């Protein structure tokens, strides 16, 4: 199993390097069109939303739309703090503290 996982890791590493390198190198010769530039902005927004939503709404795999879901509550609070402060490290730490607080003090 371990050998197979190392194989998988090498595959992920190769694909990841491709995403980081391909366009940078192509840029030497190609000019990227204005339309493509305008559209590509939405990719990270859609991708990050796709990752965040299930981690808050379905932390254990199935949808949990309830006030008993501590990920959802901590996520909404973290979102508001991120919007207000724009501080990366601080917001992450406060987010972690909130989820500990919800679990330890409120018994989520």
């Amino acid at each position, binding site marked *: 199993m371990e050998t197979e996982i190392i194989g998988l890791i090498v595959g992920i590493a190769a694909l990841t390097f491709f995403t980081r390198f391909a366009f940078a190198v192509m840029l030497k010769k190609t000019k990227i069109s204005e339309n493509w530039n305008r559209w590509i902005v939405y990719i990270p927004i859609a991708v*990050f939303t796709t990752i965040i939503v299930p981690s808050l709404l379905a932390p254990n795999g199935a949808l949990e739309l309830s006030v008993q879901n501590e990920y959802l509550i901590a996520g909404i609070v973290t979102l508001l703090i991120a919007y207000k402060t724009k501080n990366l490290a601080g917001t992450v730490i406060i987010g972690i503290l909130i989820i500990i607080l919800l679990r330890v003090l409120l018994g989520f």
Partner: protein
Amino acid sequence: MNKADKFLEGLKATAPLSLGIASFAIAYGLLARKAGLSLFTLTLMSLLVFAGAAQFLTISMLLSGTPFLLILLTTFIVNSRYFLMSTSLGLYTRKWGTKWQILLSFLLCDESYALTIAYFTKNDPNKYYQLGVSLGLYIEWAIFTVVGGFMGSFLGDPQTWGLDFALPATFIVILVPMVTTWKHITVCLATTVFSIIGLIFLPTKWYIPFAALLGTIVGGVLEFWKRK
């Protein structure tokens, strides 16, 4: 200013991000141990892949028994954001030759991109500055991955320490500054709906390519419909 000074300046710029990255790396190490990876393998992944989101996703997909091909596809789709980042940085790095491009591309991550592009737009673009930022984050990521892997045998579940929330919290902090217009908000909301639909109706992690692709298409439609 000489090369070493620029390198150190880059290195120092990573300090404000170090706490968030360290907790993220520790959470990854803990979770990877939970998924049954050896300390060697989980560290190897940090050294070769160096992409927190992709590594976390890989571990959680291994835990849920996802087929390898789907893990490869999903990490590729998640990492497709690097196409965008490397394109915008490529305008500077293309002058520096292929060797530098290979090195700096390998070390590109969300945080190094954010720091480097902010510096390059205000100061004279310098490859040693970018190298300082990138290597600083790379070494920190590797060290705290090992720390997390070691702690895994003592601490057990990252959930007890709230470290399982480091991932969603980090992504929220990365996403929020990107969302600046009503079109961006619409894409967020549409993608949220697509994710929920995908979660209910699609097997394993297929909701990721499904919702990300549809969300991006919605963005394109809004962009060009609005322009006339």
